């Protein structure tokens, strides 16, 4: 490390996740001031402080619930200085069986993974449109959205929707200074996947995933999708429906 240059502020929403914290440490280390948003301030304060000490950058914890879509625009406008990069790391796996049985539970999964993040991206697009510099909206989706599976199809459906939304938004904002970046992490060793039996070669650390995202932001890449997953999912997508129906994974 050496003395970091002054870079534009970044807002990370859903900042309590392992990938978020790894990304935050990395971006602050690269010289970006940060806003770290969580639904409860006490869930993020200590980490914000930790990252501020490590990096010497200002790291501000804020309260934001993307499912309260009405307040997002005002909440973003209140940030001063304004963030130039807005990352939606919001995600919630939910309990598949519960989602099947209870439409309200299913709604929470859809709202947390699609409705809320979509509203955040829209509000972000309005904010960034007013900034005369290269800016970026980063949406973290999932490979689970590439094809619905019995195990987690509510989560998958919401993520599929979010991936489509990011693709459309990118087209809409083509020709502006706002880049739209879709991130599809594969299996990442985090709190969410802890205890799941995952194939080791396909699991990466939160730090590795964060490094990938940070690199995509600085290179203004459109899609972050590990090559192993690109190959695997193109095979999975190509499996004919009658066969896929009987597969167990």
């Amino acid at each position, binding site marked *: *490390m*050496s*003395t970091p240059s002054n870079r534009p502020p970044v807002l990370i929403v859903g900042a309590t996740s392992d990938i978020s914290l790894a990304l935050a440490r990395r971006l602050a280390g690269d010289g970006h001031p940060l806003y770290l948003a969580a639904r409860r301030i006490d869930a993020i304060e200590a*980490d914000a*402080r*930790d990252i501020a*000490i*490590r990096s*010497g950058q200002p790291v501000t914890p804020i309260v934001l619930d993307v499912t309260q879509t009405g307040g997002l625009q005002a909440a973003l406008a209140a940030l001063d200085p304004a963030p130039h990069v807005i990352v939606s790391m919001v995600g919630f796996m939910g309990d598949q069986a519960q989602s099947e049985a209870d439409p309200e539970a299913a709604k929470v999964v859809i709202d947390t993974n699609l409705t809320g993040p979509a509203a955040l991206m829209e509000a972000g697009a309005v904010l960034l449109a007013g900034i005369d510099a290269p800016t970026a909206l980063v949406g973290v989706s999932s490979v689970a959205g590439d094809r619905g599976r019995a195990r987690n199809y509510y989560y998958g459906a919401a993520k599929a929707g979010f991936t489509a939304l990011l693709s459309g938004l990118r087209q809409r904002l083509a020709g502006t200074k706002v880049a739209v970046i879709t991130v599809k992490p594969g299996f990442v060793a985090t709190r969410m996947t802890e205890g799941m039996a995952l194939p080791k070669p396909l699991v990466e650390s939160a730090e590795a995933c964060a490094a990938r995202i940070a690199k995509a932001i600085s290179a203004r890449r459109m899609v972050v999708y590990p090559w192993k997953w690109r190959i695997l999912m193109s095979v999975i997508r190509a499996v004919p429906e009658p066969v896929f129906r009987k597969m167990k994974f």
Partner: protein
Amino acid sequence: MAVLTPISGWGRYPRIRGELTAPRSFDDLEALVGSDGPVIARGNGRSYGDSSFNAAGAVSMLRLDRMLEFDAQAGVITCEAGVILGDVINAVLPRGWFPPVTPGTKYVTIGGMIASNVHGKNAVKNGAFGDHLAWFDLMRAGGDVVRCSPQENDALFRDTIGGMGLTGVILRAAFQLRRVESAWIRQDRTAHGHLDDVMRAFDESEDATYRVAWIDVLARGRNLGRSVLDIGEHALVSELPAKSADAPLAWKTRRKKAVPFTLPVSPLNGLTVRAFNAMHYRLGRAGVGQSLVDWDSYFYPLDALLHWNRIYGRPGFAQYQCVLPMATAHDGLVRLLETISGAGRGSFLAVLKRLGPTCGTLSFPMDGYTLALDFPWSKPTARLLDRLDELTLAHGGRLYLTKDSRLSASRFTEMQPEAGGFRAMRTLDGSAGSFSSLQSERLGL
């Protein structure tokens, strides 16, 4: 369901399969401490032997790694036990501060540094890490958290510093940093053809901050103990060349190489080690003089080669580090060196340092000389190390538990008379039933 993973210290001997649990919160940690069977906290696994795990496994502190407070005026940092020393340096050095004491690797945790009461090359002038602690919080048997400092719970404070995690789990700590003007060390290197010469050079440099000698353990006769001595001081801005003086606290991150896998057969044998030691001495002698070295290369030369412990192959290796009091140090070192070179079992790197007194009931450092060696693990090595134990004991010395994987309980008790009291304390306050490592069981602690 318990997932068993291979666990070992940095020396990769001994190795067990156990459960490595990494709590994310102090509540989760409390549940583990209160659960069935004794536990032991483990940092980043840089102690060499069997002090950081027991037969069941270990509790990893690596996820409890938040920096909590940094007072950039007073130079006091507060952090959770799992914070890595190198990350502290990255955070504080740009603002003109440096750890007061550092071991030879920056990949240690703060909790581990306290439990080992680590020392550095400045042990005479600055003591050990425990001497710079403002306070720490300790989770005791049963889950109670106790604040310990030189003023508060001072007996427990001393028992925990160098206490190898056996009094409880260190949760967070505050310690005083050292003011520095630059990220550079002004190094003065001298070569000495014999042990007597290098010991004289140590005597004549008592005012220096950092002192360390690399010793050719295989040299014999009139070359016995020939060494290269490095003396270091934090460079002042006025001592830097113009281009570094502009940004004295900036540095470039070193490129790191890694040993990618454990070698099936170690390339380190009698021949290569002899050649390496001789080469190291000759190169050192050729490099005599003053130079400016960046902090990372100066303090952590081995950190540039990640996983360097894999070089020793499947069997792993044993570090041997003893300290001898001033009065007997010369004779003792001569006997140790003669024994090692006589056995023809050289150490890849052998380090000679001066140590000074420190706090901590079981702490290793004392006013004297310390010799640190590493040997590929084998039966003849084990026999040689037993012989070195006898010599250390005969000269009033003792061993560094952080490096140890094989010392016997009886020799340990003879070397460290405080062991009896420590054991009694553990039985009395219940920590014996809650905290244990393979090492503590072996040593009867």
